[in-house]
């Protein structure tokens, strides 16, 4: 099976989750309050009080067949808004 890691702004989280659900993935997990740095600069959580939010880390395990659908839904979001998406191998314990 495949493991997909997405790291992106909390701002786009709802859209990304919709794309994940549309892809037919059997599940996903989300961690918020992730800080970091990427091509768009540093993301901290110092402005959390204002609702500005930080990044989210989404993990999902799925069959390889799901990937094309997932890519199709998510790639345009990452291209436009920023964030990273990587795939790796993973097998059930």
């Amino acid at each position, binding site marked *: 099976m495949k493991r997909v890691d997405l790291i992106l702004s909390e*701002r786009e989280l709802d859209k990304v989750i919709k794309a994940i659900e549309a892809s037919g993935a059997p599940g996903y997990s989300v961690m918020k309050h992730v800080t970091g740095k990427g091509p768009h600069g540093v993301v*901290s959580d110092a402005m*959390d*009080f204002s*609702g*500005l939010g930080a990044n989210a880390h989404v993990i999902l395990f799925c069959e390889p067949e799901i990937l094309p659908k997932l890519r199709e839904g998510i790639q*345009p*979001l990452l291209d436009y808004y920023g964030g990273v998406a990587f795939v790796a191998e993973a097998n059930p314990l």
Partner: protein
Amino acid sequence: MDTSLVLQNLLSPPVLFFFLGVVAVLVGSDLEIPAPLPKLFSLYLLLAIGFRGGLELAHSGLGGQVLPTILAAVLMSLVVPIYSFFTLKTKLDNFNAAAIAATYGSISAVTFITAQSFLESQKISFDGFMVAALALMESPAIIVGLLLVKLAAPQKRPDAKGMRWGAVLHEAFLNSSVFLLMGSLIIGVLVASNSPHGVEKMLPFTDKLFYGALSFFLLDMGIVAAQRLSDLRKAGPFLIGFAVLMPLLNAFLGVLIAKGLGLDHGNALLFVVLCASASYIAVPAAMRMTVPEANPSLYISTALGVTFPFNIIVGIPAYMALVNKLIPAAS
């Protein structure tokens, strides 16, 4: 400018705690108020200021200066972003210009509250309806900002048809701080006449704690504002200049309008502070959702890193001096 006013402002607990936060960053202390604790204070302050404003609005009603003042405030929140935008466009792209412009059309509730505390310490009275003006200045500024983006920038977002009006109005009127402020204001109005017992039991929470909670929150604001200082180098002298001069211009216009409206000194100062302050809560959150192309470090650093400290520290007493000079004391 009356230096004793500046000094009295500087030596009030909220401003001193703001400094303490700034100093913490400058000397490299690891003092921090971890998320989501600052959110607790921010929610509390919005709820309390809305509720108290509502109580007073219920007593003052909408007669007299109330409606004209609110209208003038809304007008300023529509106009300020427009001339700010064209000023900013000389150096910035449309997205960033529009986002910063919206920020300056809107208001800073904490600056407003600090001005209220300043007035109280000077024993100058003011009216509750000014909170209604405060609450009503956020949304128009956001809408104008997004309109400017829509007009000036070709949209090519993955959401297909670009920004839709629904989303814009949604962000403008329903973003959490506008919603909580307006909601608490309405609750204050409803409760004022119908639930005297409820009012009395709310006051220890919304009134007595208020000043201390403001001081605590300003400690965090000092930390966050000072952390922004390094962004300012990237922002450059143009934006830093804008962040000081635009509030001064808006304050000056504000005094003239306040004079035209016949506001007395207390309300005039609050009106001026509304004009001169820039939003670093509601508008940045809204811009980040709807104008992701703009760089948050620019619009947050100007509003929070320059304009906010400027207003808190020298702006408020300076505007007070201006008000004292240009508006004859009611007698």
